[in-house]
């Protein structure tokens, strides 16, 4: 990955208490080092439970590493702004707020007046040319619309980093394609350094500049593949012979060389 490092992960290890045995620990991440340039879009792929979400929580500053260091623009992650999109949009959106108020929430929490925050949300949607039934409550929307609202909420306060935790994981196929487009458009418009975590190789390659493959738990970097293709990218790029080669390479790295 070229460019000046913006997110710097050095020798990061995270251990959780083992639920099956007292006083034992499970190592989720093992001495992971990673460097991400400013404004980049990287995808992290790996098997389920390999520690991808753990890494995102460390980048968001809501989980303390067991050892090692995470720096964003030279400071601790808790001191920078971040936008976080969770896989579970039903839980992550607040059902007592309208869609517009959900999107405006980060600005309220920052001390903006409600009306001002709402206006900013409306403007953001106009800028990105996105339409949503904003006066309704989130639970009345389709899954794709709900996740789109969650995505807008994650960027309205112009965060330094955008963290996407399996955002398409709970969506049906048509909504996935729509949201894939939205993710790329929003990233291009906002310019936030973006980290997408997924176990879907196609999705990882379609949206990112760089795909990082993790080993099974404890997570370490198995391989890094650059994807220097023009944007905007549709699913058609997945038929590109070069992409097929990259895809195989990432797949091999993730599975540790098995069934390649």
């Amino acid at each position, binding site marked *: 990955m070229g460019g000046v490092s913006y997110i710097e992960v050095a020798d990061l290890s995270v251990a959780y208490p083992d639920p099956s045995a007292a006083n034992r620990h499970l190592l989720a991440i093992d001495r992971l080092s990673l460097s991400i340039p400013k404004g980049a879009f990287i995808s992290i792929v790996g098997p389920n439970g390999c520690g991808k979400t753990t890494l995102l*929580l460390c980048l*968001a500053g*809501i989980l303390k590493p067991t050892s090692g260091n995470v720096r964003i623009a030279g400071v601790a992650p*808790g001191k920078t*702004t*971040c*936008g*976080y999109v*969770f896989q*579970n949009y039903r*839980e*992550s959106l*607040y*059902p*007592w707020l309208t869609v517009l108020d959900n999107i405006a*929430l*980060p600005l*309220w*929490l920052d001390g903006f007046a409600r009306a001002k925050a709402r206006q900013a949300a409306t403007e953001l949607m106009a800028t990105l040319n996105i339409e949503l039934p904003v006066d309704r*409550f989130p*639970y009345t929307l389709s899954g794709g619309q709900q996740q789109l609202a969650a995505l807008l909420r994650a960027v309205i*306060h112009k965060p330094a980093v955008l*963290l996407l935790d399996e955002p398409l994981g709970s969506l049906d196929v048509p909504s996935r394609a729509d949201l894939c487009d939205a993710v790329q458009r929003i990233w291009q418009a906002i310019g936030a350094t973006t980290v997408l975590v997924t176990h879907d190789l196609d999705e990882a390659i379609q949206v990112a500049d760089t795909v990082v493959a993790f080993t099974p738990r404890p997570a370490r970097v198995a391989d890094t593949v650059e994807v220097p293709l023009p944007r905007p990218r549709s699913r058609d790029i997945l038929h590109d012979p070069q992409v097929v080669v990259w895809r195989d390479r990432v797949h091999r790295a993730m599975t540790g060389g098995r069934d390649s």
Partner: protein
Amino acid sequence: MTRDRALLALILLAFWSALAYSGSVSPLFLPEPHAVVVSFWRGLVSGSILRDIAATMARVLTGFLLGGAVGVTGGIFLGYWKRLHNASIPFLDFLRSVPVTAILPLFLLAFGIGDTAKIAAIAWASALMMLINTVLGVASVPPTRLMVAATLRASSYQRLVHVILPDALPQIFIGIRTAISFAVVVAVVSEMLLSTTSGIGASIYNSSVMYRTEDVYVGIILTGAIGYLLNLATARLDARIVHWRAR
């Protein structure tokens, strides 16, 4: 639905009339329907029914509001302080199992026979219901909702006001509905047991010792109607405010 309900009411009334007018049950146990209507009308004209309703409702609402405030505050506190909550679970279950009537003598000793003892008993019962439900609501906020607030660097106060309390609201409303029905029961019982001159419970008690069974029936029907209407009102309020329940 409405027709079925009206039909059921007519059948029950016919059954009551048959028993009462045929003379197969003494009017001392079951007065004739028209006697209850006449008694109700007299009470309405003299103003005694409205006075009783006002006195009982004043106790119910005062006790419920005082107890509710204490219960919600305590519930938030216990919801945060998991260790104290875990330690207190058996005590809460114990207190919940003690009928309020059993501790009425203590309220009588502490506050005398005036309104304070009755209101305190209602407040006690309401506080317990509200506390148990608030703790449940506060302690079961989905982790993702809290993580959203954490990623947005929300302060503890913002987390409480913007996430925890709204998320606990459906459970708090269950508490409100249980507590208000229970408050009516405690109000009527305490009016019967702690001598007083006003309130539906007092009217039921005084009528019963004078063998005016039709007046006892008026009191019973009033109590049921108040409980029914309060439940209806809180259910409407719940559907309006907690629109996301089970969504």
